[in-house]
């Protein structure tokens, strides 16, 4: 029998801990992104993988170089930089120059996260900051879409543009379903939106796959299910009303839901806990705001796609929402305390 006291660990209660930790959450999202990357490879070939790789590399390098100087590289382990890098890559067109994707990764982590103070401090989703920067810096290149099905090994000459040099646009370009809708008033059939064989960003193609992944993440409680529900329902209802009023002018709500980056942005960007409100009511407000903005920008704005700006705008509103919508502490309600003796 042991008589000496063991080397006891002294901590304060509670001593139990829910097994989910932050790297774990990041890993779950990364796991969910794996099928997206595989699907992108199938649709767009090696080019898509290289673009995602370049942006991820940029993100990781920045996190390493400008992260905490005392324990360099320690923040890489939480996986958030990796996640931001991959997410950014997936929002880019497959024929995007690799150097721009790399630059986007740097901006995403540098301006999107580190200048705010690192994980959990940033106001905007880092991947979307990177994308917004690229959109503003290289507006033409980022809206040049390659068609699908050119073989796995096909690399656009734009992909391989030398650093700082222009992407020579291939002769073959394609329009996204939203671009067709906005500028040509052509609707892409729903079936190809679901399967994903329509041009667009690397990660935004197969709606069916994204829905499955979203359900899985919601079931795992990796993200707050309220956000996607709020966004998608708002878009469906808003677009549905417009469609019923005037089906000639406005696309059907299903087209709105399954086209463009709505599903991808909803599932992987809007649900970023750092940049969304905390209290459930605030979360609903956040989701509804994104949904309304997406429809407004898509139908009346100057751009075919509005998910990025919608999410960024609501990111900016998040501190305000969190300030206004607070949980009311237990026992501080207005209700009469002696009422309620029903049972």
């Amino acid at each position, binding site marked *: 029998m042991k008589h000496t006291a063991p080397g006891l660990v*002294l901590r304060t*209660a509670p001593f139990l801990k829910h097994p989910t930790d*932050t790297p774990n959450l990041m890993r779950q999202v990364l796991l969910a992104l794996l099928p997206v990357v595989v699907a992108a490879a199938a649709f767009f070939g090696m080019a898509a993988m290289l673009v995602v790789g370049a942006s991820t590399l940029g993100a990781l390098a920045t996190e390493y170089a400008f992260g905490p100087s005392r324990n360099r590289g320690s923040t890489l382990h939480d996986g958030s930089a990796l996640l931001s890098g991959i997410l950014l890559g997936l929002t880019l067109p497959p024929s995007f120059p690799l150097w721009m994707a790399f630059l986007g990764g740097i901006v995403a982590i540098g301006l999107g996260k580190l200048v705010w103070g690192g994980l959990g401090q940033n106001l905007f989703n880092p991947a979307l900051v990177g994308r917004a920067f690229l959109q503003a810096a290289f507006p033409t290149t980022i809206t040049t879409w390659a068609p699908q099905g050119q073989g796995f090994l096909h690399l656009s000459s734009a992909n391989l543009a030398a650093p700082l040099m222009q992407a020579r646009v291939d002769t073959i370009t394609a329009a996204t379903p939203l671009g067709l809708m906005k500028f040509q008033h052509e609707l892409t059939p729903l079936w190809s939106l679901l399967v994903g064989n329509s041009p667009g960003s690397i990660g935004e193609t197969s709606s069916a796959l994204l829905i499955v992944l979203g359900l899985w993440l919601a079931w795992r409680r990796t993200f707050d299910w309220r956000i996607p529900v709020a966004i998608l329902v708002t878009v469906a209802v808003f677009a549905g009303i417009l469609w019923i009023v005037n089906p000639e002018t406005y696309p059907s709500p299903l087209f709105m839901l399954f086209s463009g980056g709505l599903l991808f942005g909803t599932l992987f960007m809007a649900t970023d806990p750092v940049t969304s409100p905390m209290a459930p009511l605030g979360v609903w407000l956040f989701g509804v705001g994104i949904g309304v903005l997406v429809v407004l920008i898509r139908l009346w704005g100057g751009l075919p796609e509005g998910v990025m700006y919608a999410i960024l705008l609501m990111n900016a509103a998040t501190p305000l929402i969190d300030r206004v919508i607070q949980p009311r502490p237990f*026992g501080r309600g207005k209700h009469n*305390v002696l009422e309620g003796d029903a049972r």
Partner: protein
Amino acid sequence: MSLPGTAARFPSFRHGIHPAGHKESTAGLAIEHLPLFSHYLLPLGQHIGAPSVPVVSVGDGVIRGQLLAEPGGFVSTGLHAPVTGHVSHIGPRRHPNGHLVPAIEIRADPFADDRPPPPSPTHAAGMDLGDFVKFVQKGGMVGMGGAAFPTHVKYALPPGRRIRRLVVNGAECEPYLSADHRLMLERPEAILRGTAIVAEQLGVEAVYLGIEANKLDALDALERARCGFPDLDVLQLVPLAVKYPQGAEKMLIKAITGLVVPAGKLPLDVETVVNNVGTMAAIADLFDLGKPLLERVVTVAGSGVRRPANMLVPLGTSVRDVLEACGGISEDTSMVIMGGPMMGMPLASLDVPVLKGTSGIIALAAKDVRVSGTYGCVRCGRCLQACANFLNPSRLGRLAAVGRYQEMQKHYLMDCMECGACSYVCPSGIPLVQLFRMSKAEIRNREVAT
């Protein structure tokens, strides 16, 4: 772990968490008696409030049940000799919380008669409330769920106030613990008897006994036993959803009656009093047997314990003795907790006594002591969903980290009951409760200073 359905079927409060129960290893084990040990250490301050005042001196012989120290004030209780022997020391000794506190040490007489003394019942029925309160106080009764709040204080009503409801707490929501569970299974009559005594004294209109749904066998045992108590026709046995912190007074009241105790107020303000099942049984023993609080049921469990058990432990027995009676602790034990794993205290040494409020001794092997990394708060909001008090632990944690205590007060820091639910769920491993405790202490210090 509760099934998703249980939360819906049984009443409960809102928010809270569902930690793994870990109760299987001890829930089926009958309460054992502990052999006699040589030393018993009784700190004078085992409860919230003023320490008791010794009435014996070093060298005095004492017999089991003899008063050692009388209440040192109104919020204070008596202290009794758990064994027959003599007083070997009165002076500072190590309290489980690590401080040196005045204590009475008793060297047990190995040849003493350890048969229980003949019962000397006191009839509660004839007492008025004042005498009843004094009697309970002298009997050393404290809340045995863990907080060790002197029980009689809850019964001492300010003039003009009355109690309509008595809520008996059989929730036992802390993981690992099954002491109350076993008590309800093995001594349902004592619990009901104590409940009846208190209910009659207070003249309540309703009596509830809340039990979490993972202990429905205890509910059955009480249901069977209640036929012996025709007076207790107002008693309702209420199965509750399995959720932490169901056993917190305010949460239990909310779960059972739907009443919300206003923040900063007591259950008394909604004309309710809450007592633990262990306290009820002890009160029954006090009146029926004339036995003050001498011993209590302690769950000894956890991956570091060789032979988990529920033990009836005389107060003052050292933790080391209790653990050795359970086969000792394994070599890889890295943490011993007094109380439950959510709100208990870690022990730096095993040579500390079991107190009136010690509901469990949990020894955890290194593999179960989860030392999680700490990351920045990712604002996931899980702590908001966990906090039964509907606070915003994330924001409070951020404020605490930069020392903005006044702002924390504005965000209702003082409503926090330190149940640990937020720390439990935090994926970033932020020691929220620890930050809140420190902040509260800092706020109190500043208030004292001004």
